[in-house]
Protein backbone atom coordinates (compact mmCIF):
# COMPACT_ATOMS: atom_id res chain seq x y z
CA UNK A 1 0.00 0.00 0.00
CA UNK A 2 1.47 3.45 -0.79
CA UNK A 3 3.08 4.96 2.29
CA UNK A 4 3.72 1.70 4.15
CA UNK A 5 7.49 2.26 3.81
CA UNK A 6 7.12 5.70 5.38
CA UNK A 7 5.10 4.24 8.26
CA UNK A 8 7.77 1.60 8.83
CA UNK A 9 10.37 4.35 9.04
CA UNK A 10 8.23 6.32 11.48
CA UNK A 11 7.81 3.17 13.60
CA UNK A 12 11.60 2.78 13.80
CA UNK A 13 12.10 6.36 14.96
CA UNK A 14 9.27 6.00 17.50
CA UNK A 15 10.90 2.83 18.84
CA UNK A 16 14.18 4.73 19.23
CA UNK A 17 12.46 7.68 20.88
CA UNK A 18 10.77 5.44 23.45
CA UNK A 19 13.84 3.19 23.71
CA UNK A 20 16.11 6.10 24.58
CA UNK A 21 14.31 6.43 27.94
CA UNK A 22 14.73 2.88 29.17
CA UNK A 23 17.10 0.93 26.90
CA UNK A 24 20.76 1.93 27.54
CA UNK A 25 21.69 0.66 24.07
CA UNK A 26 19.56 3.44 22.61
CA UNK A 27 21.01 6.25 24.73
CA UNK A 28 24.70 6.36 24.01
CA UNK A 29 25.66 9.87 25.11
CA UNK A 30 28.09 10.23 28.02
CA UNK A 31 27.76 13.75 29.48
CA UNK A 32 31.49 14.38 29.44
CA UNK A 33 32.60 16.85 32.05
CA UNK A 34 30.42 15.27 34.75
CA UNK A 35 30.76 11.62 33.71
CA UNK A 36 34.22 10.60 32.50
CA UNK A 37 34.28 7.31 30.59
CA UNK A 38 37.04 4.85 31.55
CA UNK A 39 39.69 4.93 28.81
CA UNK A 40 41.00 1.63 27.46
CA UNK A 41 44.44 0.82 28.81
CA UNK A 42 46.18 1.11 25.46
CA UNK A 43 44.86 4.64 24.75
CA UNK A 44 47.74 6.92 23.76
CA UNK A 45 48.28 10.64 23.55
CA UNK A 46 51.51 12.61 23.68
CA UNK A 47 54.71 10.83 24.91
CA UNK A 48 56.41 11.35 28.30
CA UNK A 49 59.84 10.43 29.70
CA UNK A 50 59.95 7.76 32.42
CA UNK A 51 62.06 8.48 35.55
CA UNK A 52 62.81 5.78 38.11
CA UNK A 53 62.20 7.77 41.30
CA UNK A 54 59.77 10.55 41.75
CA UNK A 55 61.86 12.58 44.23
CA UNK A 56 64.73 13.56 41.97
CA UNK A 57 63.18 13.22 38.47
CA UNK A 58 66.15 14.61 36.55
CA UNK A 59 68.49 12.31 38.39
CA UNK A 60 66.88 9.03 37.35
CA UNK A 61 65.83 9.56 33.73
CA UNK A 62 66.00 6.25 31.88
CA UNK A 63 66.81 8.05 28.66
CA UNK A 64 70.44 7.78 27.61
CA UNK A 65 70.17 10.28 24.74
CA UNK A 66 70.85 7.66 22.06
CA UNK A 67 68.73 9.79 19.65
CA UNK A 68 67.15 6.77 17.92
CA UNK A 69 63.68 8.21 18.54
CA UNK A 70 64.80 11.54 17.13
CA UNK A 71 65.85 9.85 13.86
CA UNK A 72 62.82 7.57 13.58
CA UNK A 73 60.14 10.16 14.47
CA UNK A 74 58.09 10.67 11.25
CA UNK A 75 57.34 14.40 11.75
CA UNK A 76 60.78 14.98 13.36
CA UNK A 77 59.31 16.67 16.44
CA UNK A 78 61.87 15.45 19.06
CA UNK A 79 65.05 17.48 19.80
CA UNK A 80 67.79 16.00 21.96
CA UNK A 81 71.16 17.42 23.07
CA UNK A 82 73.54 14.95 24.73
CA UNK A 83 75.07 15.83 28.10
CA UNK A 84 78.83 16.34 28.38
CA UNK A 85 79.35 14.34 31.60
CA UNK A 86 78.04 10.91 32.55
CA UNK A 87 75.84 9.76 35.38
CA UNK A 88 75.51 6.24 36.73
CA UNK A 89 72.14 4.87 35.70
CA UNK A 90 69.95 2.32 37.44
CA UNK A 91 72.43 -0.54 36.92
CA UNK A 92 75.25 1.66 38.24
CA UNK A 93 76.90 2.02 34.83
CA UNK A 94 77.85 5.62 33.89
CA UNK A 95 75.58 6.67 31.01
CA UNK A 96 75.00 9.83 29.12
CA UNK A 97 71.76 11.68 29.80
CA UNK A 98 69.89 14.23 27.69
CA UNK A 99 70.82 17.82 28.62
CA UNK A 100 67.91 19.04 26.44
CA UNK A 101 64.96 16.80 25.48
CA UNK A 102 62.13 18.76 23.84
CA UNK A 103 59.01 17.52 22.05
CA UNK A 104 56.97 19.98 20.01
CA UNK A 105 53.45 18.72 20.78
CA UNK A 106 52.00 20.91 18.03
CA UNK A 107 53.89 18.76 15.51
CA UNK A 108 53.73 15.38 17.29
CA UNK A 109 50.87 13.17 15.94
CA UNK A 110 51.17 10.66 18.84
CA UNK A 111 51.93 7.76 16.47
CA UNK A 112 54.03 6.04 19.22
CA UNK A 113 56.86 5.01 16.85
CA UNK A 114 59.32 6.58 19.33
CA UNK A 115 58.04 4.22 22.04
CA UNK A 116 58.45 1.24 19.72
CA UNK A 117 62.01 1.95 18.66
CA UNK A 118 63.35 3.03 22.12
CA UNK A 119 65.66 0.24 23.35
CA UNK A 120 65.69 1.56 26.94
CA UNK A 121 61.89 1.88 27.52
CA UNK A 122 62.66 5.48 28.38
CA UNK A 123 59.72 7.07 26.55
CA UNK A 124 56.07 5.98 26.89
CA UNK A 125 52.71 7.28 25.62
CA UNK A 126 50.69 9.29 28.10
CA UNK A 127 46.89 9.14 28.54
CA UNK A 128 46.43 12.79 29.49
CA UNK A 129 44.23 14.46 26.85
CA UNK A 130 42.92 17.54 28.61
CA UNK A 131 45.98 19.66 27.79
CA UNK A 132 44.46 22.65 26.02
CA UNK A 133 46.44 25.88 26.54
CA UNK A 134 45.87 29.45 25.42
CA UNK A 135 49.51 29.94 24.42
CA UNK A 136 50.13 28.78 20.84
CA UNK A 137 53.90 28.39 20.83
CA UNK A 138 56.02 28.07 23.95
CA UNK A 139 53.41 26.12 25.95
CA UNK A 140 53.31 23.45 23.24
CA UNK A 141 57.09 22.91 23.24
CA UNK A 142 57.47 20.60 26.27
CA UNK A 143 60.99 20.49 27.70
CA UNK A 144 62.65 17.74 29.73
CA UNK A 145 61.22 18.80 33.05
CA UNK A 146 57.64 18.92 31.79
CA UNK A 147 57.99 15.58 29.99
CA UNK A 148 59.45 13.61 32.89
CA UNK A 149 56.93 11.51 34.87
CA UNK A 150 57.71 8.87 37.50
CA UNK A 151 57.48 5.12 36.88
CA UNK A 152 54.68 4.95 39.49
CA UNK A 153 52.55 7.12 37.18
CA UNK A 154 53.35 4.70 34.36
CA UNK A 155 52.15 1.83 36.55
CA UNK A 156 49.01 3.78 37.30
CA UNK A 157 47.98 4.41 33.69
CA UNK A 158 49.18 1.16 32.17
CA UNK A 159 49.37 -1.54 34.82
CA UNK A 160 50.04 -4.60 32.58
CA UNK A 161 52.50 -2.90 30.27
CA UNK A 162 54.39 -1.29 33.16
CA UNK A 163 54.62 -4.61 34.99
CA UNK A 164 56.16 -6.26 31.91
CA UNK A 165 58.66 -3.44 31.40
CA UNK A 166 59.70 -3.52 35.04
CA UNK A 167 59.98 -7.30 34.98
CA UNK A 168 62.27 -7.08 31.97
CA UNK A 169 64.38 -4.28 33.45
CA UNK A 170 64.87 -6.06 36.79
CA UNK A 171 65.78 -9.27 34.94
CA UNK A 172 68.31 -7.25 32.95
CA UNK A 173 69.71 -5.62 36.05
CA UNK A 174 69.98 -9.02 37.79
CA UNK A 175 71.84 -10.41 34.75
CA UNK A 176 74.18 -7.40 34.81
CA UNK A 177 74.85 -7.90 38.55
CA UNK A 178 75.51 -11.65 38.17
CA UNK A 179 77.91 -10.90 35.35
CA UNK A 180 79.59 -8.24 37.49
CA UNK A 181 79.74 -10.67 40.48
CA UNK A 182 81.09 -13.45 38.26
CA UNK A 183 83.66 -11.04 36.84
CA UNK A 184 84.59 -9.92 40.37
CA UNK A 185 84.92 -13.61 41.47
CA UNK A 186 87.09 -14.37 38.43
CA UNK A 187 89.07 -11.23 39.30
CA UNK A 188 89.54 -12.41 42.90
CA UNK A 189 90.66 -15.91 41.69
CA UNK A 190 93.24 -14.42 39.43
CA UNK A 191 94.17 -11.77 42.02
CA UNK A 192 97.85 -12.83 42.00
CA UNK A 193 98.15 -12.51 38.27
CA UNK A 194 99.51 -9.14 37.28
CA UNK A 195 96.69 -6.69 37.17
CA UNK A 196 95.64 -6.37 33.51
CA UNK A 197 95.78 -2.81 32.23
CA UNK A 198 92.37 -1.41 33.07
CA UNK A 199 90.86 -1.06 29.65
CA UNK A 200 89.23 2.20 29.02
CA UNK A 201 85.62 2.01 29.91
CA UNK A 202 83.97 2.07 26.54
CA UNK A 203 80.89 4.09 26.46
CA UNK A 204 77.87 1.90 26.33
CA UNK A 205 77.04 2.28 22.74
CA UNK A 206 74.07 0.08 22.10
CA UNK A 207 75.07 -1.61 18.93
CA UNK A 208 72.44 -2.76 16.51
CA UNK A 209 69.92 -3.64 19.12
CA UNK A 210 67.62 -6.50 18.62
CA UNK A 211 64.19 -5.00 18.13
CA UNK A 212 62.39 -4.58 21.40
CA UNK A 213 59.48 -6.71 20.50
CA UNK A 214 56.19 -5.14 21.52
CA UNK A 215 55.86 -4.94 25.20
CA UNK A 216 53.24 -7.46 26.16
CA UNK A 217 54.79 -10.21 24.08
CA UNK A 218 57.73 -11.99 25.61
CA UNK A 219 60.28 -9.60 24.19
CA UNK A 220 63.84 -10.58 23.50
CA UNK A 221 65.95 -8.65 25.98
CA UNK A 222 67.92 -5.99 24.23
CA UNK A 223 71.40 -7.48 24.23
CA UNK A 224 73.25 -4.47 25.61
CA UNK A 225 76.81 -5.63 25.80
CA UNK A 226 77.95 -4.83 29.32
CA UNK A 227 81.68 -4.65 29.05
CA UNK A 228 83.97 -6.19 31.58
CA UNK A 229 84.35 -3.80 34.47
CA UNK A 230 86.93 -3.98 37.19
CA UNK A 231 85.18 -4.12 40.54
CA UNK A 232 85.36 -0.64 42.07
Amino acid at each position, binding site marked *: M*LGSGLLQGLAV*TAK*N*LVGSFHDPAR*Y*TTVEYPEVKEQLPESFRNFPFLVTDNATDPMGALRCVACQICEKECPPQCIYIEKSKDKKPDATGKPQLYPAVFAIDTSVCMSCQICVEVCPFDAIKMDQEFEIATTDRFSALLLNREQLAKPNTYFHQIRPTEAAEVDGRLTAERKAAEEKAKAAAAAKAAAAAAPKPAASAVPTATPAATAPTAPKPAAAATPAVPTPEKPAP
Partner: protein
Amino acid sequence: MSATNDAFLETFPVTLRDAATNWLPAPWNWLAQGLIAVVAVLAIFGSLFAILTLVERKALGRVQNRPGPNRTGLPYTARLPWLKFTEGKIFGLGQPMADGIKMLTKEDIVPREADQVLHFIAPVAMLAMSLMTFAVIPFGRNLVPVELDASVLYFFAAGAATELAVFMAGWGSRNKFALLAAMRALAQLISYELPLILSFVPVVMIAGSLSTVGIVAAQSSWHWGFIPHWYVLTPWGFAGFLIFMVSALAESNRSPFDLPEAESELIAGHLTEYSGFKYALFFMAEYLGMTALSGMAVTLFLGGWNAPLPFLQFIPSYVWFAVKLLTLLMGFIWIRATLPRLRMDQLMHLSWKFLVPLCLVNLANTTVWHLTASLPLAVRWLLCAVIIVAPFTLIGRSLTKGVAPRTYRYAE
Protein backbone atom coordinates in the same frame (compact mmCIF):
# COMPACT_ATOMS: atom_id res chain seq x y z
CA MET B 1 -24.95 21.62 25.57
CA SER B 2 -24.66 20.17 29.05
CA ALA B 3 -24.60 22.05 32.31
CA THR B 4 -20.82 22.43 32.20
CA ASN B 5 -21.31 25.15 29.63
CA ASP B 6 -20.96 27.83 32.29
CA ALA B 7 -18.64 26.06 34.72
CA PHE B 8 -16.17 28.41 36.34
CA LEU B 9 -13.06 27.19 34.49
CA GLU B 10 -14.92 27.16 31.20
CA THR B 11 -15.93 30.79 31.18
CA PHE B 12 -13.02 32.09 33.25
CA PRO B 13 -11.13 33.76 30.35
CA VAL B 14 -14.25 35.44 29.03
CA THR B 15 -15.33 36.79 32.42
CA LEU B 16 -11.79 38.06 32.97
CA ARG B 17 -11.86 39.93 29.66
CA ASP B 18 -15.33 41.38 30.29
CA ALA B 19 -14.31 42.51 33.79
CA ALA B 20 -11.33 44.33 32.30
CA THR B 21 -13.19 46.09 29.49
CA ASN B 22 -16.85 46.59 30.48
CA TRP B 23 -16.27 49.90 32.26
CA LEU B 24 -15.15 51.45 28.94
CA PRO B 25 -17.66 53.34 26.65
CA ALA B 26 -18.80 51.47 23.54
CA PRO B 27 -16.17 52.16 20.82
CA TRP B 28 -13.26 51.90 23.31
CA ASN B 29 -14.73 48.70 24.77
CA TRP B 30 -14.52 46.95 21.39
CA LEU B 31 -10.98 48.26 20.87
CA ALA B 32 -9.84 47.12 24.34
CA GLN B 33 -11.28 43.63 23.81
CA GLY B 34 -9.51 43.41 20.48
CA LEU B 35 -6.24 44.49 22.07
CA ILE B 36 -6.62 41.92 24.87
CA ALA B 37 -7.24 39.20 22.31
CA VAL B 38 -4.14 40.25 20.32
CA VAL B 39 -1.97 40.36 23.44
CA ALA B 40 -3.28 36.96 24.57
CA VAL B 41 -2.58 35.33 21.17
CA LEU B 42 0.89 36.87 20.96
CA ALA B 43 1.80 35.86 24.51
CA ILE B 44 0.53 32.29 24.29
CA PHE B 45 1.75 31.47 20.80
CA GLY B 46 4.98 33.39 21.25
CA SER B 47 5.89 31.28 24.26
CA LEU B 48 4.58 28.16 22.47
CA PHE B 49 7.06 28.99 19.69
CA ALA B 50 9.88 29.25 22.22
CA ILE B 51 8.97 25.97 23.90
CA LEU B 52 8.39 24.31 20.51
CA THR B 53 11.97 24.99 19.39
CA LEU B 54 13.25 23.36 22.57
CA VAL B 55 10.82 20.42 22.37
CA GLU B 56 11.74 19.85 18.71
CA ARG B 57 15.46 19.74 19.43
CA LYS B 58 14.97 17.50 22.46
CA ALA B 59 12.64 15.15 20.56
CA LEU B 60 15.06 15.03 17.58
CA GLY B 61 17.84 14.31 20.08
CA ARG B 62 15.94 11.55 21.80
CA VAL B 63 15.09 9.96 18.45
CA GLN B 64 18.79 10.02 17.65
CA ASN B 65 19.74 8.46 20.99
CA ARG B 66 21.20 11.63 22.45
CA PRO B 67 19.88 13.96 25.15
CA GLY B 68 19.26 17.13 23.13
CA PRO B 69 20.00 20.56 24.66
CA ASN B 70 20.45 20.22 28.42
CA ARG B 71 23.19 22.70 29.23
CA THR B 72 21.42 26.02 29.46
CA GLY B 73 19.55 26.51 32.69
CA LEU B 74 17.34 29.29 34.03
CA PRO B 75 19.08 31.95 36.16
CA TYR B 76 18.79 31.70 39.98
CA THR B 77 17.28 28.23 39.83
CA ALA B 78 20.49 26.66 41.14
CA ARG B 79 20.00 28.53 44.43
CA LEU B 80 16.39 27.39 44.97
CA PRO B 81 16.60 24.55 47.51
CA TRP B 82 14.04 22.30 45.89
CA LEU B 83 15.71 22.67 42.48
CA LYS B 84 19.21 22.05 43.81
CA PHE B 85 19.47 18.64 42.13
CA THR B 86 19.34 20.16 38.61
CA GLU B 87 22.44 22.33 39.33
CA GLY B 88 20.71 25.17 37.48
CA LYS B 89 20.57 23.16 34.27
CA ILE B 90 16.85 22.16 34.37
CA PHE B 91 16.87 19.93 31.29
CA GLY B 92 17.78 22.81 28.97
CA LEU B 93 14.67 24.89 29.64
CA GLY B 94 16.78 27.98 29.33
CA GLN B 95 17.60 27.12 25.71
CA PRO B 96 14.85 29.24 24.07
CA MET B 97 15.96 32.26 26.07
CA ALA B 98 19.56 31.59 25.20
CA ASP B 99 18.65 31.33 21.50
CA GLY B 100 16.60 34.52 21.73
CA ILE B 101 19.44 36.48 23.30
CA LYS B 102 21.89 35.01 20.81
CA MET B 103 19.69 36.05 17.90
CA LEU B 104 19.26 39.54 19.33
CA THR B 105 22.94 40.11 19.94
CA LYS B 106 24.23 38.58 16.72
CA GLU B 107 25.28 41.02 14.04
CA ASP B 108 22.71 41.36 11.31
CA ILE B 109 24.82 41.21 8.13
CA VAL B 110 23.13 42.54 5.01
CA PRO B 111 25.15 41.78 1.85
CA ARG B 112 26.25 44.84 -0.11
CA GLU B 113 24.68 43.52 -3.31
CA ALA B 114 21.36 42.78 -1.55
CA ASP B 115 18.25 44.75 -2.40
CA GLN B 116 17.95 46.61 0.92
CA VAL B 117 14.21 47.23 0.69
CA LEU B 118 13.17 43.65 -0.06
CA HIS B 119 15.75 42.25 2.33
CA PHE B 120 14.17 44.20 5.18
CA ILE B 121 10.49 43.79 4.30
CA ALA B 122 10.61 39.99 3.81
CA PRO B 123 10.85 38.86 7.45
CA VAL B 124 8.45 41.56 8.61
CA ALA B 125 5.82 40.59 6.02
CA MET B 126 6.30 36.89 6.69
CA LEU B 127 5.79 37.24 10.43
CA ALA B 128 2.87 39.67 10.04
CA MET B 129 1.00 37.35 7.69
CA SER B 130 1.49 34.22 9.80
CA LEU B 131 0.37 36.11 12.93
CA MET B 132 -2.73 37.38 11.13
CA THR B 133 -3.83 33.83 10.47
CA PHE B 134 -4.40 33.30 14.23
CA ALA B 135 -7.28 35.76 14.25
CA VAL B 136 -9.93 33.25 13.23
CA ILE B 137 -8.97 30.02 15.04
CA PRO B 138 -11.48 29.21 17.86
CA PHE B 139 -9.31 28.30 20.85
CA GLY B 140 -12.16 27.67 23.24
CA ARG B 141 -15.96 27.74 23.60
CA ASN B 142 -16.23 31.47 22.85
CA LEU B 143 -12.54 32.27 22.65
CA VAL B 144 -12.19 33.25 19.01
CA PRO B 145 -10.32 36.57 18.54
CA VAL B 146 -12.36 37.67 15.51
CA GLU B 147 -15.65 36.12 14.56
CA LEU B 148 -16.06 36.42 10.80
CA ASP B 149 -18.67 34.92 8.52
CA ALA B 150 -16.02 33.78 5.96
CA SER B 151 -13.23 33.12 8.50
CA VAL B 152 -11.85 29.99 6.82
CA LEU B 153 -11.41 31.94 3.59
CA TYR B 154 -9.70 34.73 5.59
CA PHE B 155 -7.31 32.16 7.07
CA PHE B 156 -6.12 30.96 3.66
CA ALA B 157 -6.04 34.45 2.21
CA ALA B 158 -3.63 35.59 4.93
CA GLY B 159 -1.66 32.34 4.60
CA ALA B 160 -1.29 32.85 0.84
CA ALA B 161 0.57 36.14 1.34
CA THR B 162 3.51 34.43 3.09
CA GLU B 163 4.63 33.10 -0.30
CA LEU B 164 5.38 36.65 -1.34
CA ALA B 165 7.60 37.12 1.69
CA VAL B 166 9.56 33.94 0.92
CA PHE B 167 10.10 35.15 -2.63
CA MET B 168 11.17 38.61 -1.46
CA ALA B 169 13.72 37.02 0.88
CA GLY B 170 15.09 34.79 -1.84
CA TRP B 171 15.24 37.44 -4.55
CA GLY B 172 16.32 40.28 -2.28
CA SER B 173 19.46 38.65 -0.93
CA ARG B 174 21.09 38.47 -4.45
CA ASN B 175 22.62 35.05 -3.77
CA LYS B 176 22.52 32.18 -6.24
CA PHE B 177 21.37 29.66 -3.69
CA ALA B 178 18.73 32.08 -2.44
CA LEU B 179 17.56 32.65 -6.03
CA LEU B 180 17.21 28.91 -6.64
CA ALA B 181 15.35 28.64 -3.33
CA ALA B 182 13.03 31.54 -4.20
CA MET B 183 12.02 29.87 -7.47
CA ARG B 184 11.52 26.56 -5.70
CA ALA B 185 9.50 28.22 -2.92
CA LEU B 186 7.23 29.97 -5.45
CA ALA B 187 6.49 26.79 -7.31
CA GLN B 188 6.02 24.67 -4.18
CA LEU B 189 3.78 27.05 -2.22
CA ILE B 190 1.44 27.70 -5.13
CA SER B 191 1.08 24.08 -6.16
CA TYR B 192 0.33 22.99 -2.56
CA GLU B 193 -2.16 25.77 -1.93
CA LEU B 194 -4.60 24.02 -4.26
CA PRO B 195 -4.81 20.70 -2.39
CA LEU B 196 -4.81 22.67 0.89
CA ILE B 197 -7.91 24.62 -0.09
CA LEU B 198 -9.61 21.77 -1.97
CA SER B 199 -9.20 19.51 1.08
CA PHE B 200 -11.21 21.82 3.36
CA VAL B 201 -14.04 22.39 0.85
CA PRO B 202 -15.83 19.11 1.83
CA VAL B 203 -15.84 20.29 5.47
CA VAL B 204 -17.50 23.55 4.45
CA MET B 205 -19.99 21.69 2.27
CA ILE B 206 -21.10 19.40 5.08
CA ALA B 207 -20.90 22.01 7.89
CA GLY B 208 -22.80 24.43 5.67
CA SER B 209 -20.85 27.50 6.82
CA LEU B 210 -17.53 29.14 6.14
CA SER B 211 -17.07 30.37 9.72
CA THR B 212 -14.79 28.32 11.94
CA VAL B 213 -17.15 28.70 14.93
CA GLY B 214 -19.98 27.21 12.84
CA ILE B 215 -17.79 24.31 11.73
CA VAL B 216 -16.81 23.50 15.32
CA ALA B 217 -20.44 23.73 16.41
CA ALA B 218 -21.39 21.27 13.64
CA GLN B 219 -18.96 18.71 15.08
CA SER B 220 -20.07 18.97 18.68
CA SER B 221 -22.59 16.12 19.23
CA TRP B 222 -22.01 12.35 19.53
CA HIS B 223 -23.25 9.24 17.70
CA TRP B 224 -24.79 6.64 20.07
CA GLY B 225 -23.30 8.55 22.95
CA PHE B 226 -19.62 7.83 22.45
CA ILE B 227 -18.48 8.31 18.83
CA PRO B 228 -17.95 12.10 18.35
CA HIS B 229 -19.25 13.83 15.25
CA TRP B 230 -15.75 14.85 14.23
CA TYR B 231 -15.23 14.97 10.53
CA VAL B 232 -11.97 13.01 10.74
CA LEU B 233 -14.01 9.93 11.59
CA THR B 234 -15.83 10.02 8.26
CA PRO B 235 -14.05 8.52 5.22
CA TRP B 236 -14.03 11.75 3.24
CA GLY B 237 -13.00 13.61 6.39
CA PHE B 238 -10.08 11.27 7.06
CA ALA B 239 -8.89 11.56 3.44
CA GLY B 240 -9.32 15.33 3.60
CA PHE B 241 -7.42 15.41 6.90
CA LEU B 242 -4.46 13.47 5.44
CA ILE B 243 -4.32 15.65 2.34
CA PHE B 244 -4.64 18.77 4.52
CA MET B 245 -1.74 17.63 6.72
CA VAL B 246 0.47 16.76 3.74
CA SER B 247 -0.22 20.15 2.17
CA ALA B 248 0.28 21.86 5.54
CA LEU B 249 3.71 20.21 5.68
CA ALA B 250 4.46 21.65 2.27
CA GLU B 251 3.02 25.11 3.02
CA SER B 252 5.15 25.51 6.15
CA ASN B 253 8.29 24.14 4.39
CA ARG B 254 8.55 21.27 6.83
CA SER B 255 10.42 18.07 6.49
CA PRO B 256 9.70 15.98 3.47
CA PHE B 257 9.07 19.21 1.55
CA ASP B 258 11.71 21.55 2.98
CA LEU B 259 13.15 22.13 -0.48
CA PRO B 260 13.45 25.91 -0.28
CA GLU B 261 15.91 25.68 2.59
CA ALA B 262 17.38 22.29 1.79
CA GLU B 263 20.57 22.25 3.78
CA SER B 264 22.30 19.62 1.70
CA GLU B 265 21.67 21.42 -1.60
CA LEU B 266 20.99 25.08 -1.09
CA ILE B 267 22.62 25.61 2.30
CA ALA B 268 19.86 27.62 3.95
CA GLY B 269 17.93 28.48 0.81
CA HIS B 270 16.19 31.79 0.97
CA LEU B 271 17.53 32.30 4.51
CA THR B 272 21.19 32.08 3.44
CA GLU B 273 21.84 35.80 3.65
CA TYR B 274 19.95 36.37 6.89
CA SER B 275 21.51 36.45 10.32
CA GLY B 276 20.68 37.85 13.71
CA PHE B 277 17.17 38.93 14.48
CA LYS B 278 15.83 38.78 10.92
CA TYR B 279 16.70 35.08 10.83
CA ALA B 280 14.91 34.66 14.17
CA LEU B 281 11.83 36.36 12.68
CA PHE B 282 11.81 33.89 9.79
CA PHE B 283 12.30 31.05 12.23
CA MET B 284 9.38 32.29 14.34
CA ALA B 285 7.19 32.79 11.28
CA GLU B 286 7.79 29.21 10.18
CA TYR B 287 6.83 27.83 13.58
CA LEU B 288 3.80 30.10 13.89
CA GLY B 289 2.72 29.06 10.39
CA MET B 290 3.05 25.43 11.41
CA THR B 291 1.01 26.05 14.59
CA ALA B 292 -1.69 28.02 12.72
CA LEU B 293 -2.08 25.30 10.08
CA SER B 294 -2.34 22.57 12.70
CA GLY B 295 -4.78 24.79 14.66
CA MET B 296 -6.92 25.01 11.53
CA ALA B 297 -6.61 21.25 11.00
CA VAL B 298 -7.89 20.75 14.57
CA THR B 299 -10.78 23.13 13.92
CA LEU B 300 -11.79 21.64 10.57
CA PHE B 301 -11.30 17.92 11.15
CA LEU B 302 -10.71 17.15 14.83
CA GLY B 303 -13.73 18.93 16.24
CA GLY B 304 -11.97 22.10 17.46
CA TRP B 305 -12.47 22.43 21.22
CA ASN B 306 -15.03 19.59 21.55
CA ALA B 307 -14.31 16.88 24.08
CA PRO B 308 -13.99 13.38 22.62
CA LEU B 309 -16.47 11.83 25.10
CA PRO B 310 -19.54 13.37 26.72
CA PHE B 311 -18.49 12.76 30.34
CA LEU B 312 -15.10 14.38 29.66
CA GLN B 313 -16.70 17.74 29.16
CA PHE B 314 -15.85 18.98 32.64
CA ILE B 315 -12.34 19.66 31.34
CA PRO B 316 -12.49 23.21 29.84
CA SER B 317 -12.72 23.47 26.07
CA TYR B 318 -9.45 25.36 25.53
CA VAL B 319 -7.59 22.48 27.18
CA TRP B 320 -8.99 20.08 24.58
CA PHE B 321 -7.91 22.42 21.80
CA ALA B 322 -4.41 22.61 23.30
CA VAL B 323 -4.13 18.81 23.61
CA LYS B 324 -5.12 18.23 19.99
CA LEU B 325 -2.85 21.05 18.78
CA LEU B 326 0.16 19.65 20.64
CA THR B 327 -0.40 16.11 19.32
CA LEU B 328 -0.44 17.46 15.75
CA LEU B 329 2.73 19.45 16.40
CA MET B 330 4.39 16.32 17.78
CA GLY B 331 3.42 14.63 14.51
CA PHE B 332 5.17 17.43 12.57
CA ILE B 333 8.33 16.93 14.63
CA TRP B 334 8.14 13.16 14.33
CA ILE B 335 7.93 13.37 10.54
CA ARG B 336 10.82 15.82 10.45
CA ALA B 337 12.96 13.36 12.41
CA THR B 338 12.43 10.55 9.93
CA LEU B 339 11.71 11.34 6.34
CA PRO B 340 14.22 12.35 3.65
CA ARG B 341 13.40 15.10 1.17
CA LEU B 342 11.58 14.88 -2.15
CA ARG B 343 13.06 16.27 -5.34
CA MET B 344 11.48 19.29 -6.96
CA ASP B 345 9.85 17.51 -9.89
CA GLN B 346 8.58 14.72 -7.63
CA LEU B 347 7.13 17.41 -5.36
CA MET B 348 5.22 18.89 -8.29
CA HIS B 349 4.19 15.46 -9.49
CA LEU B 350 2.87 14.58 -6.03
CA SER B 351 0.77 17.72 -5.83
CA TRP B 352 -0.64 18.03 -9.32
CA LYS B 353 -0.99 14.39 -10.26
CA PHE B 354 -1.84 12.86 -6.90
CA LEU B 355 -3.21 15.23 -4.30
CA VAL B 356 -5.38 17.42 -6.55
CA PRO B 357 -7.14 14.48 -8.29
CA LEU B 358 -7.66 12.88 -4.87
CA CYS B 359 -9.19 16.14 -3.60
CA LEU B 360 -11.62 16.23 -6.53
CA VAL B 361 -12.58 12.59 -5.90
CA ASN B 362 -13.00 13.52 -2.24
CA LEU B 363 -15.46 16.26 -3.25
CA ALA B 364 -17.50 13.72 -5.16
CA ASN B 365 -17.19 11.41 -2.17
CA THR B 366 -18.68 14.07 0.10
CA THR B 367 -21.66 14.58 -2.17
CA VAL B 368 -22.27 10.82 -2.11
CA TRP B 369 -22.05 10.97 1.70
CA HIS B 370 -24.49 13.86 1.79
CA LEU B 371 -27.02 12.28 -0.61
CA THR B 372 -27.04 8.87 1.09
CA ALA B 373 -28.13 10.41 4.42
CA SER B 374 -31.04 7.94 4.58
CA LEU B 375 -28.84 4.80 4.50
CA PRO B 376 -27.60 3.36 7.85
CA LEU B 377 -24.27 4.92 8.98
CA ALA B 378 -22.16 1.75 8.50
CA VAL B 379 -23.24 1.25 4.87
CA ARG B 380 -22.62 4.92 4.08
CA TRP B 381 -19.22 4.72 5.72
CA LEU B 382 -18.18 1.67 3.72
CA LEU B 383 -19.46 3.08 0.44
CA CYS B 384 -17.59 6.34 0.82
CA ALA B 385 -14.47 4.55 2.05
CA VAL B 386 -14.40 2.48 -1.14
CA ILE B 387 -14.95 5.57 -3.28
CA ILE B 388 -11.83 7.23 -1.86
CA VAL B 389 -9.53 4.21 -1.38
CA ALA B 390 -9.89 2.91 -4.94
CA PRO B 391 -8.46 6.03 -6.66
CA PHE B 392 -5.89 6.31 -3.88
CA THR B 393 -4.36 2.95 -4.83
CA LEU B 394 -4.83 3.49 -8.59
CA ILE B 395 -3.24 6.96 -8.75
CA GLY B 396 -0.78 5.87 -6.07
CA ARG B 397 0.55 3.22 -8.41
CA SER B 398 1.42 5.96 -10.91
CA LEU B 399 3.65 7.53 -8.27
CA THR B 400 5.81 4.46 -7.80
CA LYS B 401 5.37 2.98 -11.27
CA GLY B 402 9.02 2.92 -12.40
CA VAL B 403 10.33 1.37 -9.23
CA ALA B 404 10.01 -2.31 -8.37
CA PRO B 405 11.74 -3.78 -5.32
CA ARG B 406 14.97 -5.14 -6.71
CA THR B 407 16.66 -8.48 -6.15
CA TYR B 408 20.42 -8.76 -6.41
CA ARG B 409 22.39 -11.63 -7.92
CA TYR B 410 25.69 -12.79 -6.47
CA ALA B 411 28.83 -13.53 -8.46
CA GLU B 412 29.33 -17.31 -9.00
